Structures are given as C-alpha cells and as structure tokens.
C-alpha cells in the first residue's frame, strides 16, 4: 500500500475514533447530569409531596387525591404511597416511551431515575413513606438530540480537520512524488538531480540521491575526458587537430557506404608543394604555422557545410569530404584562391594544388581516392594554385524538381512500396540481438527498392520523414508479430523536430505492446548532440512502452555529450568510422575500449557498426563491445579476406 494511502487511512481512522470518542463523552456526561437532575427532582418532589400529605391529617382520600393531582399534572413515572407497615397504600404509574430516541439508543444509554423517598405522618403517627419516580423519557429524547448535535458539530470539526489534513498530505505528497520520480528515473538510467523538497526526511533522501548523481557525473566526466583524449590520439593529427589519415579514410568509407548517407558528395585533395624544401628554408616553426593556417582555412568550410569533414592525410596532403554533389570543384577553387592570397605571407615559394572529384553513395573508397589522386596529379603538373576537377558523377537523382520528389516519396508511402531490409546484429556468442531494419523504398513503381541515401534527402526536403519513420515502425512491428525476431529501426533527426512525433510513435507502440518489447529504436548521435532534450523526451515516451532506445553512428561526439547519463538510453551503436580497422590500430582499439568501458558504466549496451572482417570482430570483442553488425556479420565468408 502506498505511503500516502496509509497516511490517509491513519488520518481517517483517527478522525472517526475522535468523532466516536467525542460523541461518547458528550453523551455519557450529559447522561450523568440528567441522571443527577432526575435524582434531585425525585427527592425534592418526594419531600414536597410528603409535606403536603402530612397536612392532610391522615385522611386517606385527601392524601390519595393530592398525590394523584401531583402525578397527573407533573411528569412522573410512578408515585407510590407505602404504609407504615410496608404495604403499598396507593400508587399511580405511567409508561411513556421516548418520542425521538430510537430503542437501541435507549438500551445503550440507560438513565436511572432514582426514586425520591420521604416520610409522611399525621402528628406523631407515622403513616408511611411516599416514593416518587420522575419520567425519564424526556431525558432520553434530550440525550438523543444532544448526541445528534454533538455528532453534527464534531462531524463539521472532522471535515475541517480532514481538509487541513488534505492540505498537509498534499504538502508532503508533491515532494514525495518528485523524490519517487527521481528514484524511478535513476532506475531507468536517467541520472538527474532535482530540487530539494521542504520535508526534512525527503530532503535528506533527495540530497543523498543528488549527491550520488553528482558523483556519477564526476566519474562520467572523468571517463569521458579520458575517452576524448584516446579519441584524439587515435584519430587526430597532433599538429592541426584534424582527422589523421586512418580516421579520415574510415569516415569517408563509412559515409560512402552508410545506409542513410548522402547520395552524392565531393572529395577534395589539397597538397602543399615541396613541403620538405619549405620546411628547410622556412624552419620548422614557420612551417607548422603555415600548416595550421591551411587547416584553419579548411575548417571554415566544414563549419559552413553540415556533414563535411576534413583530414590531414600526411605531412603535405589535406582532404575535404563534402556532403553534397556538384560543389567540389567550386569549393576547391575557392579554397585555393584563399590560400593563394594567404600563403605568400609564409614565403614566396609556398604553393598548393588541389584535385576535386564528385563522389556518389555506394562508391568504393579506393575508387574515389584514386580518382582524386589522379586529379591532383594533373593539377600538380600545372602551375601552382591550380585546381583540377574530375567529373565522375552520374546523374542518378530523380528529376522533376522538388514537387516531383515529394510526389514520388508520398506515392511510394501511400502505395506501401516500402519494405525493411534486415542486417543482423549479433553478440559474442553469435546469437542474434536484433535485426537492423533500414527502410527501402521503391520510388518508381516496378523499379528497384532504393536505400535511404537515395530518398531520405527528398523526404527531408518534403518534410515527410515523420511518415517514413512511422511506416518503418509499423512494418517492424508487423514483422516482429509475424516471426518474433527483435528488430531495430532508426528515426530520422528531422522527424524529431515535429512536436507530435513522439506521441504518434507511442500510440503505435501501445497498439501492439507485445511486439513493442522486441523493438529497438535509434537516433543519430548528432541528433542527441543538437536536440538533446527532444531525444531525452522521446526516450521517456518510448521506453515505458517496452521499446529499447539508443544512439547510432556514435563515437565522435560521445565524449562531448556531457548529459549522456541523463538521456535514459539502452544502447549505443558505435560508428563504423570508429570501429573499422581497430585490429590494425592499437590507439583506435584503446579508444574503443575506453568508450565501451564508459558506456558500460552507464549500463548501456555497446554495439559496433560496420564490422567488415574477422580480425576487427575479434578485437572488438576484446574491447568489450556487446554486439557487432556489418558486412562481416551479414556474410562472414565473403567478407573475410581469404587467408
């Protein structure tokens, strides 16, 4: 039974007891008073009557008449005259029942009418004694009314007391609810602090929980800092802070092959000419300054284009990956022009060349790198500050303008030309954790089912992502209901911005609660960074329905996600750019291990994405991840290099 209910029962019991005791005391004291009054009245009336009878000179008729007159005009139950020899001479009796008081009340509160006795004589001759008993029926009525009045008054007092108690209990209940809510959120993995309540005991409890959360935060921040430094060591160039070669390649490979990547992109390779010579003439410090200046120029671009990333591939080579097709050459030219102005400050002989190529989703990493290398080689053959662009793009996008895309996506959704692909996620024992289910859409009737890279940008621009995600959720729930296999779907960051989205998802989940328990729902790490509160709210809405909630493509920003421990997540999928190639790179493995340890300390499951060979898988298990997914998991034979 809840504490508040117990308090209520206790209060109610106390009030009823007080009411009962109050009425009982009032009635019993009133009864005592009435009884005493009756006794006095009996006694006085007996004496008065005896005096009257004594005046009758022993005439029996006169005495009887006087006694009868007294009886008839007064309120008596009986008047008896007992002779000196002990025999009754005459008597009058009447029984009157109480008019208002119920029988049970009369039986419960007997009022004894003590007879009053007085001696009657005629001169010296003793005639006998007169015994007078007053009527007590009126007393019972009086007592009954008194009891009712007392009950009424005490009832009113009781109601007032109840109201006061209600206010008091409410005063306790609100902070208690907050405290309980905090405890529940701790259990859900949302480590958050709340304001301390006014109630002393609760304040201590809340303070204890807050300080525990605070301590957890400190531990987490320590771990996060450690992980961040591991990440920097593993993936950053020491001089510029840009991604190193290995990390840039992993990022680019992941971007080209990711299910929900960008359909088209650009790749720019920039080289500083004769860096060794420059280093020799300018000196090491000036060279470093120059390198950093180039890095800063590039960084301006990635801040402008969301999803772009840069890396320093080796001493002289910088690479820039753009998330948009058709702008690579233009961007490269703009950068080179900026450098043409800026670099002479470091020395007349300092110059750069750049190659730019268009990339498309699904393209081989090696192919893209070869193309951009080729373009750069051509540019180097020319004079300094030349840009050569190779046009490798093929027009794959749907034509027809924005309206056309919108119609196509909408038509595909309406005609249910969508289905879920399945990619298994397994644990170390090889058991299936869930099937990752990205949505495939048949944009044109009868055409191929395309992955998100093709249609997600269209859906985003058409603001249809909510409908797409909703459809994916329904499909996943249907599939789970059919075969009982757990499935995972991802939510587009754009959908999060729709305020009704969480409620829509929850409604769908609540309609099939059994399947919902086998559903994993994930959002991109970037969404958690940019819209932390929305993601946390979504987790709060969906997790009670039984679904698990996690982040995908995570790793880069986890260390910087300070409130990760408040988010209330179940799992985190580590991006392929982090997980790929861990077997060959001890620093990256250390980062992976640190990341897994940190996430485990928050009770989160850790899953690595994009695992493409057995060595990586082995290293990842050693790093402590709970599950892996990727090409190697899907088809171990073909993905494992023949040995």
């Amino acid at each position, binding site marked *: 039974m809840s504490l508040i209910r117990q308090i209520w029962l206790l209060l109610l019991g106390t009030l009823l007891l007080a009411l009962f005791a109050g009425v009982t005391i009032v009635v019993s004291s009133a009864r005592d008073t009435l009884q005493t009054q009756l006794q*006095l009245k009996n006694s006085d009336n007996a004496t008065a009557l005896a005096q009257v009878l*004594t005046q009758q000179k022993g005439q029996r008729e006169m005495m009887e008449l006087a006694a009868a007159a007294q009886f008839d005009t007064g309120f008596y139950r009986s008047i008896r005259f007992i002779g*000196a020899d002990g025999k009754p001479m005459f008597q009058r009796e009447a029984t009157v029942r109480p008019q208002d008081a119920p029988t049970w009340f009369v039986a419960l509160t007997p009022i004894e009418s*003590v007879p009053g*006795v*007085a001696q009657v*004589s005629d*001169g*010296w001759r*003793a005639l006998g004694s007169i015994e007078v008993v007053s009527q007590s029926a009126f007393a019972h009525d009086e007592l009954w009314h008194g009891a009712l009045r007392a009950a009424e008054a005490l009832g009113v007092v009781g109601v007032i007391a109840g109201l006061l108690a209600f206010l008091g209990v409410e005063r306790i209940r609100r902070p208690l609810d907050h405290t309980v809510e905090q405890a529940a959120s701790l259990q859900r993995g949302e480590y958050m602090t709340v304001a301390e309540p006014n109630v002393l005991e609760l304040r201590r409890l809340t303070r204890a929980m807050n300080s525990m959360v605070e301590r957890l935060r400190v531990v987490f921040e320590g771990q996060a800092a450690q992980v961040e430094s591991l990440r920097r060591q593993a993936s950053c160039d020491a001089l510029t802070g840009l991604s190193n070669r290995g990390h840039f390649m992993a990022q680019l490979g992941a971007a080209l092959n990711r299910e929900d990547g960008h359909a088209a992109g650009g790749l720019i390779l920039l080289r500083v000419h004769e860096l060794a010579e420059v280093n020799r003439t300018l000196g090491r410090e000036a060279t470093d300054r120059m390198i950093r200046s180039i890095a800063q120029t590039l960084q301006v671009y990635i801040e402008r284009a969301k999803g772009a990333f840069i890396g320093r591939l080796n001493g002289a080579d910088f690479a820039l990956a753009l998330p948009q097709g058709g702008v690579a050459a233009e961007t490269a030219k703009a950068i080179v022009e900026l450098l043409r102005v800026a670099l002479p400050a470091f020395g007349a002989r300092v110059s750069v060349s750049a190659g730019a190529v268009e990339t498309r989703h699904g393209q081989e990493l090696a192919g893209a790198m070869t193309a951009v290398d080729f373009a750069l080689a051509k540019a180097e053959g020319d004079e300094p500050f030349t840009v050569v662009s190779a046009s490798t793009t093929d027009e794959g996008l749907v034509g027809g303008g924005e309206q056309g895309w919108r119609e196509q996506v909408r038509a595909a959704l309406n005609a249910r030309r969508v289905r879920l692909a399945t990619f298994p996620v397994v644990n170390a024992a090889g058991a299936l954790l869930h099937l990752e289910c990205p949505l495939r859409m048949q944009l044109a009737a009868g055409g191929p089912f395309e992955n998100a890279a093709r249609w997600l940008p269209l859906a985003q621009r058409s603001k249809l992502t909510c409908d797409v995600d909703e459809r994916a959720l329904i499909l996943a729930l249907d599939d789970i209901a059919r075969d009982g296999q757990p499935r995972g779907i991802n939510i587009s960051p754009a959908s999060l911005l729709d305020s009704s989205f969480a409620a829509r998802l929850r409604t769908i989940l609540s309609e099939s609660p059994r399947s919902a328990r086998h559903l994993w729902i994930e959002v991109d790490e970037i969404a958690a960074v940019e819209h932390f509160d929305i993601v946390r709210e979504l987790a709060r809405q969906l997790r009670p329905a039984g679904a698990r909630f996690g982040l995908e493509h995570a790793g880069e920003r986890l260390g910087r996600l300070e409130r990760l421990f408040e988010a209330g997540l179940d799992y985190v999928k580590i991006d392929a750019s982090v997980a790929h190639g861990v077997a060959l790179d001890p620093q990256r493995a250390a980062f992976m291990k640190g990341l897994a340890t940190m996430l485990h300390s928050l009770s989160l499951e850790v899953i690595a994405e994009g695992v493409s060979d057995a060595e990586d898988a082995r290293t990842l298990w050693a790093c402590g991840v709970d599950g892996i997914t990727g090409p190697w998991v899907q088809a171990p034979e073909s993905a494992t290099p023949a040995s």
Partner: protein
Amino acid sequence: MLRASQVHGPAAVSGARALQAVLAGLVGQDESYKLTAINQFFNRRIVFAPDQEVWGQADYWASPLEMLGKGRGDCEDYVIGKYFSLLASGVPVTSLRLVYVRATIGGPGGEVLAHMVLAYYASPGAEPLILDNLIGEIRPASRRPDLDPAFSFNGDGLWQGVGAQSVGDPVARLSRWREVLAKARAEGF
C-alpha cells in the same frame, strides 16, 4: 470513628472514645435501654448553644463528631447525634424519625419556638417515644403536650438503588440533611 475524630480535636477524640464505650455496652441490650443510654449520653455531654455562637452561622447541622469536638450544639445537633448513635447500636432506621416540632416553652401560652426531636416508633403504627434535649427524660408523645409535630423524615430510602455512594457525591452535599448523612457515614456511623 476514632481516626475521624482526630480531625476535630482532642475533645472529639475523648467524646468518640466515650461514645464507643457506651455503644459497646449496648450490644445485646433491648431497645428501650439503648434509647435511654444514648439519650443520656448526649444530653449530659453536650451543652446547648445556638449555632451562631458555636459555628458562626445562623443554622448549621453538625455531625456527631463535630458536636462532640465542640461539646456544644443546638437541638438538631442533639437529634443527629442520637439518631446516628442509635443506628450504630443496631436500632432499625425505620423506627427512627427526625421530627420538626413547634415547642411551647413554660406551659400553655408560653414562648413558642421551632425545635427538632428524635421519635422512636417501636412498631410502625405505635405511639412514638420522644428523645429531646429540652426534657431529658424519654416520654411517649402523648405526654409531651408542649410539642406539636409538623414534619418528619429519616434516612430511609435515601440510598436505595443508588449503590455505594461516596462522601464526595455532589448530590450528598446539596442539602443539609444529606450532607450530615454523608459526614456521619465518613465518621464511621
């Protein structure tokens, strides 16, 4: 009774002792002997004095021990003392009555005053014997032409059906008669 008497001073103690000696001598005696003994005891031991003089009040009903303590008392104090002593000696309450009388002093046509005597009825309808402090001798009522009875009462029936009433009972304090009854009870009569 002795312990209760200590409250009222040494005179009360010696009075109580003497009364107890008298009462002890009455065990097994017939009632007329008891009447004579008790009547003599109080008439000889107590000097008549008005309440105003003894108690400083216009009218005060003293308990037997209070009276013995003062050694003085007026008519109702005598009657009360005799009444309770006789009850204590075993005389039934039904045969005793306290009677308000109009006393004519100094023969017919003499001074008239309100007075109280104790009447003893050997049987319910019999002529009573009068125990009085004006005339020390016990005489039947017919031989007391100076007394004209007005009203009589006793303690009979007062405690009927009420069970053991304590001295502290508020009702007991409400009338002089009941107060004296309660006090006498507390004093061991």
